[in-house]
């Protein structure tokens, strides 16, 4: 498979200061192997866009602990008390975005749409500094599209072209994140022959995927563990 590369090669595409879009919701659908490799590298000043920042010492939490991060954009960071601490001590910038706005902003980033008007958060602290506009008598705020330098996503399977399917609710942010960076790397549990995923079942078509790496973790008892 031409797109299949080693994890070490994959993270070479990430440069200091890059914006990284990372799929997942909590620990589900998180590219754990790629994150491990980034945490073990000396990459720094990364901005991570992801719904959460993992948990303490797990998932994206490892990037925080390893000192790779400058900033995190997402909807919910309180599940990682280290993120809260780092923010309160000025070690980490945080930008809080409503979950639906985050999902839509990333989709727009991949869709050639520069911005969109939503009612979500209008009139709240999270709308401060954002343009307002009335449509049919209601106030909407302008949200800008979000794009990244590199996206890392987690699929269940890829075929040899790079078509991706996901495990149950692990589609979450992976589908949008896969569309919105200059370079997109998918981590998967398994690679199957092209043709094994029927055309109607493909969730992320291969044109969005630049490279594929294999997950070093295996699922046991419903949870990914070291092999």
């Amino acid at each position, binding site marked *: 498979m031409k797109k299949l590369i080693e994890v070490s090669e994959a993270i070479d595409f990430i440069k200091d200061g890059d914006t990284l879009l990372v799929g997942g*919701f*909590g*620990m*589900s*659908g998180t590219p754990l192997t790629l994150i491990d490799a980034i945490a073990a590298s000396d990459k720094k000043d990364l901005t991570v866009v992801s*719904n959460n920042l993992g948990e303490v010492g797990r998932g994206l939490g490892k990037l925080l602990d390893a000192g790779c991060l400058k900033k995190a954009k997402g*909807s*919910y*960071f*309180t*599940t990682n008390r280290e*993120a*809260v601490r780092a*923010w*309160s001590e000025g070690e980490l910038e*945080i930008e*809080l*975005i*409503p*979950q*639906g*706005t*985050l*999902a*839509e902003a*990333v*989709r727009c980033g991949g869709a050639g749409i520069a911005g969109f008007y*939503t*009612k*979500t*958060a*209008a*009139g*709240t*602290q*999270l709308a401060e500094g954002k343009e307002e506009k009335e449509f049919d008598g209601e*106030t909407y705020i302008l949200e800008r599209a979000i794009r990244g330098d590199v996206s890392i996503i987690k699929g*269940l399977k890829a075929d040899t072209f790079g078509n991706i399917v*996901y*495990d*149950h*609710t*692990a*589609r*979450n*942010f*992976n*589908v*949008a994140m896969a569309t919105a960076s200059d370079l997109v790397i998918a981590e998967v549990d398994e690679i199957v022959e092209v043709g094994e995923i029927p055309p109607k079942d493909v*969730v992320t078509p291969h044109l969005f995927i630049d490279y594929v790496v294999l997950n070093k973790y295996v*699922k046991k*008892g*419903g*949870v*990914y563990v070291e092999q």
Partner: protein
Amino acid sequence: MNNELRVKVAKRVAEELNDGDIINLGVGIPTLIPDYLGDKKVYLHSENGLLGMGPTPPEDEINMDLISASKKPITMDIGASLFDSSDSFVMIRGGHIDMAVLGALQIDETGEIANWAIPGKTILGVGGAMDLVAGAKKIIIASSHQAKDGSPKFVKKLTFPSSGARKVDMLVTEHAVFKFKDGGCELVEILSDISVEELRDITDANFTVNQESMNL
């Protein structure tokens, strides 16, 4: 609030749900509601990408890639469907959720709520709260009547950061049921042995009393 009172609130909210409704349940009391629906069949929407959320699986069937928005393992009901986050919020923001049942930190007398941040504390989580407030067709707040320190949660004017301009439809606490309409609030039912006067004592918000529904 003890579990008995939480169940009371959940049961009362369950009465408001209609057969066939698409429901999104927030954390806390709302998660108790599915146990008290009787014969009513509702469809539970989970914002991380599932319509048709079923009960918790037995230990040996847990898959942490089949979870609720609270990141707990779940199952899928028959007729369920899976989708990604952006499509999930099409449903929420686009008005396709019949009812959201949410908790709140404060509710003001117009029905505006605060449910994501306390001033002076770290404000690092909003999740889907504001999207649900902006988009659900109907919103019921299921909450303890007072905060843990005994201060009123149901206030004249929010002092905590608002979750959005949209007003909720109903507030159910262990003591009473209130409906919001045209910027005002009406007491429609008392659920404990409290009197209307005692209720006003522990409530900062102004409310009128629906004489008919209160049998007054």
